[in-house]
């Protein structure tokens, strides 16, 4: 049989239409297309793709099951390694992970591993599942998880399955971390996917306590000494927004991406005034940054009614850290990429509202510490971009609330928690950490992997202690 060199396209909403609604952009394979795409896999005896997956999903095995139409078996295989396949199939940067290493990619396009993972997961989500609550013995040990993002959720699930009583403490009024407040609905449906996964955890017996800020309502020490938790897993993410520290950044109309996306996703400002939280989007918007967060903010702006949206990024297209698919989608929707430009000042009108973003043109010099070519300003090339809204999406740091109230849990220079890579163990006995709070802003799958490893280590720690 002749090899099909190209990936089967995934149907998606028309760019003209989707730029004005919050429904999911990519629609997923149907059965026939999934089977056809699965048939492109060579079922390699030494599968290179698996090395590219941070949690080593048994890729050829699950794809073989998709190919033979045994979808329930396929999802079973995926779930052995990955607790949130419907999420990862959608948001993993596959081109840098599993698909990057697929042999089919050498001469043609790699197998659409992410799309097949999504297909199997969606098939599974549609089926009713009976989840039996875990029956706990009276002396079951309690474990606390701080933060309900992918790291916390996967740790909670693993620990519950190992028989521990798990309580997840979440600062916001909704669980899910970035999956709920950051990544937009049009990329990751909240009710259909994120909330279903959380509900399943609850059915298993995991308790989720919302509105509980650790470091404020309870410290980690209080959880262990007064509330009876034998171990704690800290997965508070990278939630502290960075600003550019340029003049005019406090003007009305300048948002951090966190604020912009939180107002839209968590507070549902896109349904204003039915939902009461407002979000102001001008006719022209500049989003500063080139990662997933920037793409999400730019595409959200369009959907909230902006007529012209710029991405202002200081390096070139090649260095854009966002997922390839998101860059393509953004372009198709009409986002205007102002590459090799760096903001130097936000300019306001007499009422304190943004009226322009002053930028300087950049060129690429020698590679810097990150291995990417360093952007250098071109003298005298400043120009003004007339915009009414500026969204700053240049990265997030660690929120210090937990660290500053847990002195014997050490942090590094950047404020991230120091934790053993293999176990997540911190410098404080019984306290483990993982996800973005340890690594700095990274990916969903890495956070989940860290949660899983820590659950294993917590189990070993508690067994040894007993």
């Amino acid at each position: 049989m002749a090899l099909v060199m190209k990936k089967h396209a995934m149907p998606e909403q028309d760019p003209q239409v989707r730029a004005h609604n919050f429904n999911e952009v990519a629609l997923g394979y149907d059965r026939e297309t999934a089977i056809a795409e699965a048939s492109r896999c060579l079922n390699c005896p030494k599968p290179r793709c698996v090395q590219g997956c941070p949690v080593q999903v048994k890729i050829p095995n699950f794809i073989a099951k998709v190919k033979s139409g045994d979808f329930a078996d396929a999802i079973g295989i995926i779930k052995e390694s990955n607790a949130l396949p419907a999420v990862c199939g959608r948001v993993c940067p596959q081109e840098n992970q599993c698909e990057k290493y697929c042999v089919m990619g050498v001469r043609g396009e790699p197998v659409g591993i992410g799309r097949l993972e999504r297909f199997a997961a969606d098939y599974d989500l549609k089926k009713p599942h009976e989840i039996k609550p875990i029956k706990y013995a009276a002396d079951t040990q309690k474990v606390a998880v701080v933060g309900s993002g992918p790291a916390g959720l996967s740790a909670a699930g693993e620990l519950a399955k190992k028989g521990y009583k798990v309580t997840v403490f979440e600062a916001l009024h909704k669980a899910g971390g970035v999956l709920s407040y950051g990544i937009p609905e049009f990329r990751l449906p909240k009710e259909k996917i994120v909330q279903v996964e959380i509900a399943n955890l609850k059915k298993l017996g995991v308790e989720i306590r919302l509105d509980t800020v650790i470091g404020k309502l309870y410290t980690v020490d209080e959880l262990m000494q007064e509330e009876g938790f034998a171990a704690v897993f800290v997965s508070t993410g990278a939630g502290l927004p960075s600003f550019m520290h340029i003049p005019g950044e406090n003007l009305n109309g300048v948002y951090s991406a966190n604020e912009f996306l939180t107002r839209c996703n968590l507070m549902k400002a896109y349904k204003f005034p039915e939902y009461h939280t407002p979000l102001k989007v001008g006719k022209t918007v500049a989003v500063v940054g080139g990662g997933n967060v920037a793409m999400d903010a730019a595409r959200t702006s369009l959907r909230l009614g902006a007529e012209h949206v710029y991405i202002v990024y200081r390096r070139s297209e090649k260095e854009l850290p966002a997922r390839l698919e998101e860059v393509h989608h953004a372009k198709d929707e009409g986002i205007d990429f102002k590459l090799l430009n760096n903001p130097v000042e936000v300019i306001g009108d007499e009422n304190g509202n943004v009226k322009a973003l002053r930028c300087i043109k950049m060129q690429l010099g020698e590679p810097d510490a990150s291995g990417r070519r360093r952007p250098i300003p071109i003298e005298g090339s400043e120009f003004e971009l007339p915009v009414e809204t500026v969204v700053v999406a240049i990265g997030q740091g660690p929120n210090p609330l937990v660290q500053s109230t847990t002195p014997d849990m050490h942090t590094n220079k950047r404020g991230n928690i120091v934790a053993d890579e293999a176990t997540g163990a911190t410098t404080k006995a019984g306290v483990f950490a993982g996800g973005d709070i340890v690594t700095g802003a990274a990916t969903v799958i890495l956070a989940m992997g860290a949660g899983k490893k820590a659950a294993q280590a917590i189990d070993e720690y508690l067994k040894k202690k007993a």
Partner: protein
Amino acid sequence: MYKILKKELLSPKVWLYDIEAPQIAKKAQPGQFLIVRTDEEGERIPLTIADFDRAKGTVSIVFQEVGAGTEVLGQLNEGDDILDVVAPLGKKTHIEKGMGTVVCIGGGIGVAPIYPIARGMHQVGNKVISIMGAKNKEILILEKQMRAVSDEVLVTTDDGSYGIKGFVTNALQQIIDRGEKIDEVIAIGPVVMMRSVVEATRPYKIKTVVSLNPIMVDGTGMCGGCRVQVGDEIKFACVDGPEFDGHLVDFKGLMSRQRMYKDMEKIESDHVCKLSTVKGEL
């Protein structure tokens, strides 16, 4: 869910609620705030913890109905539950023995949050002179409580219907002019009031603390929406504050940012009005 145990009207459109929240009551300190949400569609509304009773396990809020969110909150009754309460947020007020003479200034409903601070200052033995300001006698709140925790209380009303006629700054000037050695001033109230207090103490270099109320979303340092310029630094009021050295605060920027959603608040308020009439007709 957090039950409202007591609801009391302090002055027109100003409510006091005692809310059942034992763990919050256990941890709350003067100067801190909480965030409430009344329903699934509602905003997150920041309110100062006006009082706490660790034994009873309650915290109190005093709020004024100013827009859609606080109106919905005001419609709840004793026995009703508040959907979400997040607390205690922000840093506590710096209170210790030996601070000397402290002037606690509360303007309008700012008297509510200044009350636990005055009480705390008094409990550790500092001399507390309180200034309470209101538009008129009718809307002055918590006078009895303030008198119980102060060595001296001065009341000002804009119209002279009670106490000194004028603003809290007039009373403050009187205290300064009589030669009282003031070690610290703490002022909570409308931004214009706090700004005037800061200008009144600046020439005398009296340490002046103000409690800021920029627009907030999460209250945990995650969104940066509450940022204010303090000296040459950008601070997040929800985690670095809400109290700051008033002589360093950029009040102009703060006021400008507070106006950000004025036009949308109108749309929202009309929407909620319509909803409540519909509900009323059903």
